[in-house]
């Protein structure tokens, strides 16, 4: 007696991605910004905005991968500092300095990522604590390489990467598009799916045959490469090396990921959300300036806007929750555990 359980077969639609609401908020903020500062929508304005966003966006993209695997990582500012000072000291001296220094910083990022990954996955250290240690070490290494701001970045990196291509497409915009495209593809690779699995339930992943330790190691390594790339692009922005990347940048990398809708508990969210989160934090500065907010009001409004961005994200979670409820017959986990 085959039990036929009539269950409304749900149509293909996934619940609304939370990054959609972050995108809506970004558009609203950009509109207010461009109303008050007409130069916002000029090519130069957009190029400058993208150049200011790119470093935070790529660093938070790297961090997103780690948070999806239910781990945390503070070493981003450390790797960015090391990459920045390396580019400033090496890029003009090496043959083919531009490409050579890019490979070098990605290698350095990979190395630090592997060390972090090994400490967390194989030695079983708590990721927040051990990456705090590696962050301080990297900051030390940056100071040893270059004990004060200076050095010189190859002209190509400094001018071409922050300029536009074919006269109308900002290079930073191209790079961001490539990162988003890479993520869309990456998410559907086995490694991408494994990251979500490990982030949701490490024991179940282990029982499913996923190499949990290997996945975590590779996630830290990949994030390290992203941080190296972010450091490289910071060198393009500043055209110089500065061993002291500020701690406030570290907090904003985490803020970008959270505003983008990725849950800090792991298993839910994505890089696109974090890139939008980074864009929100960057346009916030421009918006506040254009609207005429100055002096200490900037801090007050920045704090307010960050909370508002999250409430927008929560709004999306509530709506998606309702949207899913009537469709599935057994909403047996009606209450949200978190």
């Amino acid at each position: 007696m085959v039990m036929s359980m009539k269950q409304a077969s749900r149509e293909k639609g996934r619940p609304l991605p939370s990054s959609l609401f972050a995108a809506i908020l970004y558009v609203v903020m950009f509109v207010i910004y461009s109303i008050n500062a007409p130069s916002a929508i000029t090519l130069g304005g957009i190029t400058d905005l993208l150049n200011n966003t790119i470093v935070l966006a790529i660093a938070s993209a790297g961090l997103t991968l780690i948070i999806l695997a239910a781990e945390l990582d503070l070493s981003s500012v450390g790797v960015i500092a090391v990459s920045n000072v390396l580019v400033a000291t090496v890029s003009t001296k090496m043959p083919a300095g531009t490409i050579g220094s890019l490979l070098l910083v990605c290698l350095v990022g990979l190395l630090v990522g592997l060390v972090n990954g090994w400490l967390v996955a194989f030695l079983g250290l708590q990721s927040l604590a051990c990456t705090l240690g590696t962050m301080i070490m990297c900051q030390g290494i940056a100071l040893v390489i270059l004990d004060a701001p200076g050095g010189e970045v190859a002209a190509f990196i400094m001018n071409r990467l922050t300029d536009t291509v074919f006269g109308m497409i900002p290079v930073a915009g191209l790079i961001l598009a490539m990162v988003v495209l890479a993520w869309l593809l990456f998410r559907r690779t086995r490694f991408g799916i494994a990251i979500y699995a490990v982030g949701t339930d490490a024991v179940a992943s282990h029982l499913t045959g996923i190499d949990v330790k290997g996945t975590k190691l590779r996630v830290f390594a990949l994030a390290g490469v992203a941080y190296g790339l972010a450091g490289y692009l910071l060198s393009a922005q500043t055209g110089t090396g500065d061993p002291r990347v500020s701690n406030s940048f570290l907090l904003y990398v985490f803020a970008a990921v959270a505003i983008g809708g990725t849950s800090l508990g792991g298993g839910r969210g994505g890089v696109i959300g974090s890139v939008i989160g980074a864009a929100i934090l960057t346009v916030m500065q421009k918006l506040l300036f254009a609207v005429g907010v100055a002096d200490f009001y900037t801090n007050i409004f920045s704090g307010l806007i960050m909370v508002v961005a999250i409430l927008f994200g929560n709004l999306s979670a509530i709506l998606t929750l309702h949207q899913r409820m009537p469709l599935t017959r057994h909403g047996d986990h009606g209450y949200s555990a978190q």
Partner: protein
Amino acid sequence: MVKANVSSLTPILQATGVHKRYGATVALDDLCFSLYPGEVCGLLGENGAGKSTLVKILSGIVVPDAGEIALEGQAYQPHNIVDARTRGVSTAFQELSLIPTLSIAANLFLPKPKVNAIGLVTIRAIEELTETILKQYAVFDVSPSTLVGDLSLGLRQRIEIVRAMLREPRVLLLDEPTAAIADREWLFGLIESLLARGTAILYITHRLDEVRRLCKRCVILRNGRKVLDAALEDMTDDQIFSKMAGRSVVETYPIRESNIDEAAPPVLAAHKASAAGVNDVTFRLRRGEILGLAALEGQGQSSLFRVLAGLVPLKGGSIEVNGEPVRLRSARSARATGIILVPEERKTEGIFNDLSTAANISIPIINRAARFNFIRNRKERQMVERGASRVDLNSRYLWPNINALSGGNQQKAMLARSLLANPKCLLLFDPTRGVDVGTKQIIYQVIRKFAREGGAAVFYSTELDELVHLCDRCLVMYRNAIVAEVRQEELTPHLLLSLAAGHKIDAYGTA
């Protein structure tokens, strides 16, 4: 279903002298046994007897300290799941190994879903493939793109079993496969088709009726040692239990003398209550009564329990406690009126695994053991030991972390915690799931004693004979509504199963 005739040819899997210890505790001690192709071999034993450890060794999760295992003649030492699978051994785990945030299709084909030329998982292709597989394994009306997290517990268990069978294994390990499934015939049908293809199956369960029906031969473990490896026909249930428990334990149910207090207002009553997953539920629960609830998986019984426990807001109708309507805004307000829930999944909703067992038990009423909010250890210890003695939990389990205890002992601690909050009405959601026979007995006695002393209980179970023997009255839920009410005299497992499957029998239709 005719038992497969075991030909006396060479065994497909042979384990000799398998030994495994965790620190001082011996999980498996010098175990020798073999599996024959085309045979279902039962594996019985109390919790902690080593069943799960054996499964983990055979499926490559754990490496034995000593001993050899031969599979089809060659040495077999898998060091992870994928090794085991390539050698033709696959497992359906008791602790479901599915990823809730991924779709059914993704889960079926992890860790290596099919990829196209540039390494991308072909989502559409594997979903179509899943569609055919689900049809082939008679799991209907669920789309392959549904997230596993949205499925009911029973459906998740079916997907786990399908995934294990999917890879045409030579050896299939089934660890408590029917824990959350009510329709067991579905599983027996699949097992029959696998046996025809010569697969060897190791079947781990607590349910004797299943072992008798499927297995000709059975291995019983106690404290890591094999105490029996023989056919079951000539053994009675009691002999099997005494072999398992090492003491004579009769799976009988406490004799039921109901003292239902008709006069007093019902302890708990729902009038046309409806909420997310519950439509127009009306019932009455009187003092001293144990009200059973029968339902196939995913019929809204979980939502009903959450509504009564105040975890899900009521959308329509009303709930009365002792006759007066009451608004259950949160679990706190429900508990204040005396309604205590023993939660469905111990691991995620029950135990605080960073705390000691004593702390787990005393947490709801810790303030009673404190003066000016400072906990007096002596008072807490007395309280906890009083609670532990009511569920027969040995006091040496009280002090280590609760996650070091076996499933049965953890469930006893949950029960002790609920009883300590001196409930008027206990909501028990499948309290005996994944628990050994000894603990089950204790749980039955505790519920009976609670009812005798004037408490009221709502008791949902996937094991129909528990409902038949324990409950004074039994409701049946089907598609989020109560469709039938059966008085104690007419209670039989088959009646409940047919009602639960949706057959209308007007003699038992509710008003």
